[in-house]
């Protein structure tokens, strides 16, 4: 049951082989059984989930609903859910229950999905290992000694361990794709503006984008279709209809031009990983794709540019957590200054504080031009590189991350090395492009991900490439040892 595709699960629901209530109970049982060691789910929604599932069963019985009706899923704890705590992985919001639901969550709810709970994440989505969570790190089901990646590490680990068929994620610099790669699942971040940011707690507003994490490109396509769409509550939301993603999955990739940026295939990339990615590219070639080397001349500037822009935006975005209206407030503050300092000092973890301070620094008088303004200029150059590249190719392929999942604690005290683990994914966010990660093999029994980057609004083509690749390979069907048993 746990390895069934969405289409298969939906068919089982339709044929009454299983009810949504049973399916929800089944995955809730898997969470109870397996998540003790993984720590991927931090808030359970069991009671509400079962009543939602009951409703779904009624809809199914009446022959209504769609592919997602009655399908259980998990949401990253960055999406506000009315009535259910939204912590964003932070002590600051340990007590926060939003009086509204994020648009993306709402859309999935309307599509009939059943939310089982909320997944662990790096605090305020700042991290690449899930180790910055107030609720403790998440373990990678492929190797419990290693991290699942981040910041959507809880969602990635949960889907990898088959604790739910689907999970939402958000991606500011690679936070869907890198954990998807580390955990051997499929994750897609659409074009900036496709998924509403309303109710999604902001880290870096101009980079944040919600997306889908699933076992396969096909499942991710179904989920993304449901969660995306114009939202008047988000001014950066794009009013452009999404293609029929499922319908697009049948297209042949014969003649598809795949670009390999030479800047992404250097000695910084682990040789074993490079081999796996090249093999995956060969598979695309065998299906008729044309492979071209391309150049993204300014892409090496993406990490420094990102670590100016993202902290700058986060420094302002996180100012609202001041202990005055909601969230953590320190005990008996002696004055206003004390209230601010201690509430924020106690409520935020180190990585968040580091980024808030970096952000305040790069925006401050006398430094703005040298940092923030310069970074925005670099950002435009990077975007232009991609625009130029997409005149020559249809998709761009690379490794998702320069290494496989690293050991817990390994990079915890070395932020720069941690930041560099996003080296292949960050440019995409700066440009606002859609990109995904698909599993393409194993190195040392740890999953390797191939990143596919598409042109603006070409999620359909991108998902089709991922899907066609998954028709040729079965890496995406592999289940980590131990988790293939029933709960």
């Amino acid at each position, binding site marked *: 049951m746990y390895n069934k595709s969405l289409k298969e699960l939906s068919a089982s629901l339709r044929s009454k082989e299983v009810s949504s209530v049973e399916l929800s109970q089944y995955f809730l049982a898997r969470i109870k059984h397996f998540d003790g060691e993984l720590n991927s789910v931090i808030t359970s929604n069991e009671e509400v989930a079962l009543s939602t599932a009951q409703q779904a069963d009624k809809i199914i019985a009446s022959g209504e609903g769609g592919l997602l009706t009655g399908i259980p899923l998990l949401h990253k704890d960055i*999406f*506000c859910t009315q009535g259910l705590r*939204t912590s*964003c992985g932070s002590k600051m*919001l340990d007590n*926060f229950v*939003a*009086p*509204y639901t*994020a648009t993306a969550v709402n859309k999935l709810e309307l599509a009939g999905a059943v939310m089982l709970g909320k997944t662990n994440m790096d605090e305020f989505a700042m991290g690449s290992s899930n180790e910055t969570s107030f609720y403790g790190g998440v373990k990678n089901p492929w190797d419990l000694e290693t991290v699942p990646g981040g910041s959507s590490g809880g969602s990635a680990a949960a889907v990898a361990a088959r604790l739910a068929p689907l999970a939402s994620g958000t991606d500011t610099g690679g936070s869907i794709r890198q954990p998807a790669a580390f955990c051997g699942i499929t994750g897609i971040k659409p074009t900036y503006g496709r998924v509403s*940011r*309303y*109710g*999604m*707690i*902001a880290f*870096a*507003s*101009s980079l944040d984008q919600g997306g889908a994490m699933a076992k396969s490109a096909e499942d991710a396509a179904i989920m993304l279709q449901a969660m995306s769409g114009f939202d*008047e*509550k*988000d*001014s*950066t939301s794009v009013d452009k209809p999404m293609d029929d993603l499922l319908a697009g999955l049948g297209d042949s990739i014969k003649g598809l031009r795949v670009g390999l940026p030479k800047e992404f295939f250097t000695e910084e990339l682990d040789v074993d990983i490079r081999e796996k990615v090249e093999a995956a590219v060969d598979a695309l070639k065998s299906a008729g794709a044309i492979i071209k080397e391309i150049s993204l001349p300014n892409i090496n500037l993406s990490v420094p540019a990102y670590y100016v822009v993202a902290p*700058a*935006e986060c*420094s*302002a975005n*996180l*100012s*609202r*957590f*001041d202990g*005055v*209206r*909601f969230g953590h407030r320190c005990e008996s503050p002696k004055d*206003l200054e004390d209230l*601010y300092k201690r509430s924020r000092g106690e409520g935020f973890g180190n990585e968040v504080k580091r980024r808030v301070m970096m952000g*305040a620094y790069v*925006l*401050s*008088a006398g430094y*703005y031009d040298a940092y*923030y303004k310069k970074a925005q200029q670099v950002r435009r150059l990077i975007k232009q590189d991609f625009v130029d590249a997409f005149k020559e190719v249809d998709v761009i392929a690379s490794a998702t991350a320069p290494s496989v999942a690293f050991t817990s604690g390994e990079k915890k005290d070395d932020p720069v090395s941690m930041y560099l683990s996003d080296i292949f994914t960050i440019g995409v966010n700066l440009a606002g492009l859609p990109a995904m990660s698909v599993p393409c093999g194993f190195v040392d029994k740890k999953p390797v991900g191939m990143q596919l980057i598409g042109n603006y609004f070409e999620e359909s083509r991108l998902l089709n490439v991922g899907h066609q690749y998954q028709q040729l390979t079965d890496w995406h069907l592999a289940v980590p040892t131990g988790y293939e048993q029933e709960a």
Partner: protein
Amino acid sequence: MQWETVIGLEIHAQLATKSKIFSSASTAYGAEPNTQACAVDLGLPGTLPVLNEQAVRFAVKFGLAIGAHIAPFSVFARKNYFYPDLPKGYQTSQFDKPIVGLGQLDIEVDGDTKTIGVTRAHLEEDAGKSLHEDYHGMTGIDLNRAGTPLLEIVSEPDMRSAAEAVAYVKKLHTLVQYLGICDGNMQEGSFRCDVNVSVRPVGQDEFGTRAEIKNLNSFRFIEKAIAHEVERQIDVIESGAKVVQETRLYDANKDETRSMRSKEEANDYRYFPCPDLLPVAITSALLDEMRDSLPELPAAKKQRFKQQYGLNGYDSEVLTTQRAMADYYEDAVNFSDGEAKLVANWVMGELSAALNQHNIEIVSSPVSAERLGGLVKRIADQTISGKIAKQVLELMWSSEHSADELIEREGLKQISDTGELEKMIDQLMADNIDQVEQFRAGKTKMIGFFVGQLMKQTQGKANPQELNKLLQSKLKG
């Protein structure tokens, strides 16, 4: 030494939109604390701002009215600082790319016209209110005002006296109300003023160091605060010290300004473009639409009043200062069958006095323009005297009746029937032989006695001109 004062002004005009600039919460004044603050206004995590188009239209309208450049693209920025009544920890404002660029406004002081430059006007959200009283040493926060749309209008340092500054503020105050973009209510804080003041020796080109006086909310305070500040700065310089660049607060009770914070303590606001909002694009279609929607502006209206109604400069000025009063006046003239001068006297005189006394705005006058016009018509055709008219106006104030109905009901119609008046005069003269004798002996003032008696008898309804004429001839014998 002779000193010259240099003044520049920043005015915050609250835009008269129904909802806030980035949320759908109401902007109505005076609600219970925190009942008009939605999730967006509270800055709850995950919420996002959506720009109120009406605020943009109002800003454009203002820009066009002062002949300013309207930016095809303007940008909202975040102004970062911590304060309990600033929910997000930043104010969303416009910084280096404001919606309205350089424009100008003419003012008149002592009969001279002067052009004041308006540097820029930009859109921003207001903060909430911190309430320091009634909370036993703690501070209450009311976020009803948070997110209220403001247009901050920044002038060039073109004013050289408190009188010029006040003339400029009044001019703007009139203009924004004309445009219908601000209710101009200064008590409720809909129209607030920050004044930048410096002094320099006459003839010197460079400006002196300025002090900014914050949050002045009446014309009188603006004038007094400037006067006080100029005096203070001259004292400082003449005593050999230097004026410090700082923000000062005007204390109306003590009539003095005092320091709030100096430049060194000033915040670094770390402005940067707000990533939650797109640049504001102004299309030429919107510009055309706004241009077409501009009402007749005060200066043009004043000119027209002089020509069309034959009013003098002073009357035209008073009647056009408020658009509502100008509209009322024109309606009343219409209903009076064109008694322009008489209506002007009544609107500026009796009606304004009554409105002031009851503290009522002319838009909510209990006596409508139609009814006042009807009243004036009856003065003009001598149905009633001016004195009786005042009585009728009082009756109208507390009823819905027209002047004609009240004149009829109360029997206030003037007695112009000479036969009737003659009879009364004859009787009165017969009853007061002594007084008649005195008059005839040359004590002509005695006529007052007869007028008084007759007015008393007729309860003021005797036509005064008629009465006077008859008395003169009868008394003289």
